[in-house]
């Protein structure tokens, strides 16, 4: 598809075909007061040299030499130039939704491989062609559970990403869903007794995140058992996909909702990312969005098609399974290429590095007077520490030393004031961890 503007002659030709004399006549039904009669306030036109200079200037505004210890749902991981080279091929970059299988085999095969990788990683039987991001995937998982159970009460762990919970609450507001929060225990995991107390036969889904927002790894089996005992579906949200290189997949889950950003997508300004939703074969018809399926053509050759599209909104309108039908095909492709390059061993090695560097960082930080660990449950690449003073003040001091400090938990969790969520990935070097520990010690020694 080319994006070329029309020439004045072509415009006249089109106007003539529909019997309008001018653009003004075509728009005559729009009241005068809504019509723009002045030029748009945009600069330019620029010459090619000026455009290049403009972008060079903007690029020079990027900060360089910073080290980040901020995670909280978006993670800085190694990326290969191969991923970008492949996703920038025109066949992928500019292609539209592959409704026409006969001209979309490459895109469809890539989506099929994405689905295969996601179901293998999450320990589920089927994954769809991607969602917008982890938060909408989690909400769609809850809506799926609502349809499957015909129940409307939802129990969400308070340790689930606060923004994911906000998205869910926004959806729930006018849909009849009742969302209740389950508190966390002193070790940072879901309070199982409180969960059991809240569970009745009217609960559609129990939603937990692991590792949870505090970095703590949940143990799935008792949570799943409690949910299933009440006939509720067990939904697991994952914000940090790299954990799956090391940890057991959430095979007890009925639905898994995951953020795919960790697989080859740059943090950017918080997107675009790719959401993942994976579940059981028997629930596939209540799964939102589309799936690519493998089939054979009239000559018996392997081919790929979009399947279950009859439930999507372009066909079923307001009765569609979900109103989020747009997926993140290009981001999903990046994840597919990234994971294929890494392979099973590579992902495991990456995960191990996250784990050991984060544990090293914790031990370094605990040497600083006044710094305490908040939760003692096992963690992966994020952990929560308590500082003797405001995290935000400390962070502004760290910023002067080109360190993007940890996430201040006190904002979304008033009960966790002075707690900082520290993220360390494979990209963080030992020297950077030591520099951070030194800078934090210095910041805490400064008079208030």
């Amino acid at each position, binding site marked *: 598809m080319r994006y070329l503007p029309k020439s004045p002659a072509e415009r006249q030709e089109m106007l003539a075909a529909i019997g309008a004399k001018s653009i003004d006549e075509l728009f005559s039904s729009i009241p005068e007061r809504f019509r723009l009669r002045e030029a748009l306030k945009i600069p330019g036109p620029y010459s090619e040299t000026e455009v290049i200079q403009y972008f060079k200037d903007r690029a020079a505004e990027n900060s360089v030499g910073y080290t980040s210890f901020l995670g909280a749902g978006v993670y800085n991981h190694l990326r290969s130039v191969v991923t970008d080279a492949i996703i920038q091929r025109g066949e992928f970059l500019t292609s539209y939704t592959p409704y026409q299988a006969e001209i979309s085999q490459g895109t469809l095969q890539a989506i099929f491989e994405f689905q295969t990788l996601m179901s293998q990683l999450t320990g589920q039987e089927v994954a769809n062609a991607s969602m917008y991001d982890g938060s909408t995937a989690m909400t769609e998982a809850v809506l799926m559970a609502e349809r499957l159970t015909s129940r409307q009460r939802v129990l969400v762990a308070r340790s689930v990403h606060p923004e994911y919970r906000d998205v869910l609450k926004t959806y729930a507001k006018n849909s009849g869903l009742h969302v209740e929060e389950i508190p966390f225990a002193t070790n940072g995991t879901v309070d199982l007794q409180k969960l059991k107390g809240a569970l009745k036969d009217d609960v559609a889904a129990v939603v937990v995140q692991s590792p949870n927002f505090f970095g703590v790894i949940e143990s799935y089996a008792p949570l799943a058992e409690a949910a299933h005992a009440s006939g509720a579906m067990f939904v697991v949200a994952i914000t940090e996909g790299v954990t799956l290189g090391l940890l057991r997949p959430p095979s007890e889950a009925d639905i898994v909702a995951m953020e795919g950003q960790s697989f080859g997508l740059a943090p950017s300004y918080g997107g675009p990312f790719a959401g993942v939703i994976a579940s059981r074969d028997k629930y596939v018809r209540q799964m939102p969005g589309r799936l690519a399926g493998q089939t054979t053509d009239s000559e018996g050759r392997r081919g790929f098609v979009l399947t279950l599209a*009859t*439930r999507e909104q372009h066909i079923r309108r307001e*009765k569609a399974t979900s109103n989020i039908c747009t997926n993140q095909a290009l981001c999903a492709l990046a994840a597919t290429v990234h994971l294929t390059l890494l392979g099973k061993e590579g992902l495991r090695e990456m995960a191990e590095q996250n784990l050991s560097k984060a544990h090293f960082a914790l031990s370094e930080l605990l040497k600083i007077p006044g710094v305490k660990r908040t939760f003692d449950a096992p963690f992966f690449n994020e952990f929560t520490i308590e500082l003797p003073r405001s995290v935000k003040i400390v962070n502004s001091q760290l910023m002067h030393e080109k360190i993007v400090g940890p996430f201040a938990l006190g904002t979304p969790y008033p009960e966790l004031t002075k707690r900082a969520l520290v993220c360390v990935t494979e990209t963080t070097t030992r020297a950077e961890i030591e520099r951070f520990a030194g800078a934090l010690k210095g910041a805490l020694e400064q008079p208030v």
Partner: protein
Amino acid sequence: MAYPKTYRYTKDHEWIDVKGDVATIGITDHAQHELGDVVFVELPKPGAKIEAGKSFGTVESVKAVSEIYAPASGEVTEANGDLHNTPEKINSDPHGAAWLIKVRLANAAAVSSLMDAAAYEAYIAEKGKETSA
């Protein structure tokens, strides 16, 4: 395929067969023909309440997902579980083995206001003319 004389029919192409206060409900041969190959059917669980004119389930074919509308109000006593594994029976035997649900009717007399076989056949013949015109 003949339309059984003892059944009643709706404009949305469902049939209902009343025996006492229990009725069996399905979709017509005309409906299955319009849908094409049926690949999935979604039915309510026993105990569910259905309301005349309201959707109680869906039939999915390779072409579309269609709502199934209740010909009468009542409580579902049984859903045809065989259709879960063999939805194609809806294409081969829509008026018999591929019944969808059995319902305890709230008001069995209300069913007599629906079309009988002759009226339904005339109705679909008329619809056919509209389409070809």
